């Protein structure tokens, strides 16, 4: 993988928890590249460190060691404001936005670009409309967030990240609470955003088969705390999929692209 295609580069990254003076390292020595126009799925069992790694990449938690660069600039040294124009986030946090309309919620994505009071001008409004259209939620533009289904809510949150106009979008388990149809729709949407809009999209997921089918690249956290990266074909050929879960009873079945006994 050529590093110069990368928009985000992590070098010798170590992530984990800080608890007072104690640190627990979950993953270390990570060298990762996130490229423009690619959909990357981060897979691993619960507690492997998926969320922790994403929190480090979104600068919600300082990494224990290593560096993260975006277009050659040190992400950790950037101001919050500058970062907010580079990485858009979709997480599973509970939000209190039920009484905002979809348009208002997506409008919050313009905050990194608006002035002190956050007033929206015509250009902002056009971007909000476009983002809702791209995320397939424009038919609900004037609906309250509270009235949406889980899948529609996720689309609205993705539209919000799009309105932020960041080259990178990071999603922490975007399909976690969705039914199968919405899961597939969401993954398709993210694939389109990567391929057609040139975004670098990184998501964590438990949905192995969807990720293997739709992602351009996988980041696998193995049970021995290594992160293996590559295309589905490469990783399947290397037998990497059998290093994802501790349970010896289940094995990866390449014909169904999922695990079975």
């Amino acid at each position, binding site marked *: 993988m050529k590093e110069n295609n990368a928009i985000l580069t992590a070098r010798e990254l170590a992530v984990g928890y800080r608890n007072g003076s104690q640190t627990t390292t979950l993953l270390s020595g990570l060298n990762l590249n996130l490229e423009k126009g690619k959909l990357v799925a981060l897979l691993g069992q619960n507690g492997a460190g998926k969320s922790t790694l994403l929190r480090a990449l979104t600068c919600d938690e300082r990494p224990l060691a290593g560096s993260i660069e975006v277009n050659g600039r040190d992400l950790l040294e950037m101001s919050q404001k500058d*970062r*907010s124009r580079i990485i858009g986030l979709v997480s599973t946090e*509970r939000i209190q936005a039920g*009484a905002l309309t979809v348009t208002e919620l997506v409008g919050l994505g313009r*905050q990194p670009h608006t002035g002190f009071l*956050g007033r929206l001008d015509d250009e902002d409004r056009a971007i909000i409309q476009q983002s809702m259209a791209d995320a397939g939620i424009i038919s609900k533009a004037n609906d309250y*967030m509270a009235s949406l289904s889980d899948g529609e809510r996720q689309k609205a949150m993705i539209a919000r990240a799009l309105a932020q106009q960041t080259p990178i979008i990071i999603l922490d388990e975007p399909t976690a609470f969705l039914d199968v149809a919405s899961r597939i729709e969401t993954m398709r949407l993210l694939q389109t955003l990567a391929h057609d809009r040139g975004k670098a999209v990184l998501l964590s997921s438990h949905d192995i088969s969807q990720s293997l089918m739709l992602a351009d690249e996988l980041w696998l956290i193995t049970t021995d705390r290594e992160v293996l990266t590559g295309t589905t074909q490469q990783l399947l050929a290397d037998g990497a999929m059998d290093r994802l879960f501790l349970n010896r009873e289940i094995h990866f079945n390449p014909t169904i692209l999922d695990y079975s006994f």
Partner: protein
Amino acid sequence: MTRSRYIITVIALTLLLVLLALACLAFGSVDIPVGRIVDILSGKGSGNKAWDIIILQSRIPMIATAALAGAALSISGLLLQTTFNNPLAGPSILGVSSGAGLGVAIVILAMGGSLGGLLGENVGSYIAILVGALIGAGVVLVLLIAFSMIVRSNTMLLIIGILVSYLTSSVVQLLNSVATEEGVHNYVSWGFGNFSGVSVAQMPVYAGIIILALIGSALMVKPLNAMLLGSRYARNLGVNVTRSRNVLLLITGVLTAVVTAFCGPIGFIGLAVPHIARLSLGTSNHSRLIPATILAGADIALLCALVSVINPHGIIPINAITPIIGVPIILYIILNRRRIQYFN
């Protein structure tokens, strides 16, 4: 659709404010004919010195005091609800008012009889009380920030707030047992809640601080809206969450402390009014919520002030009225959680 709803709500709340202010001007323990009140206001005078004084130095300051207190407490409640991501937060339930009250108690009781009436014209004494209230409110807010980092549950934070209130009231009682009789009397009457405590001379300080803090809250619309999405999203939108939260809590502390120092610890307005604003506007968007909350808060406080003075047998304490208005609203929102958009 929501925009016209906003405009209609703001106009309605403003009209109500005018009506309530006029009613507070016209009604009181002394009957003054409306024609005479018009004469006094137009500068001609009523020919009755006592009436002139009642209107100009009692009723008008009371109207201003009540309206500003209601606006201040309601904005405090709104800011607390958004910063702590807790719809049941408010300055009284989280103990901020009690903290300010403890500060006031220490000052009043320490000054004891030397105070000559609770908030006399003595500038030093009311400034001392104000400072006491600010410190008290500030200490509770710092404690709340610390606790909110340890206990993640909203309900637990409310219980901690209630515990803080109990603790401060027990400290106050302990202080009372060693204080002078006059000091205790002053403190007890302050505790009833009263919008008549701000004199014409004190009004610039009282009104000035509250208006500045209200403007400050209006300037925080952008981080407030980002915080609706939680701190992680707010950070991702470029908001310095720690700094914004500290500024918001400083504004809350100042608003609560000033009102508490001058009017006593007034409950329920701060908790209930932001919900009135949200329910009538149908939005959590702070650029609309803040003006509506200010107006609705002023309305509710004037309504309480009106009820307190129209009793022919004497003045009813404000704190006997606010729960009657506040509790049904809070019960309504608790019982209707699933049907109210901003909970979902």
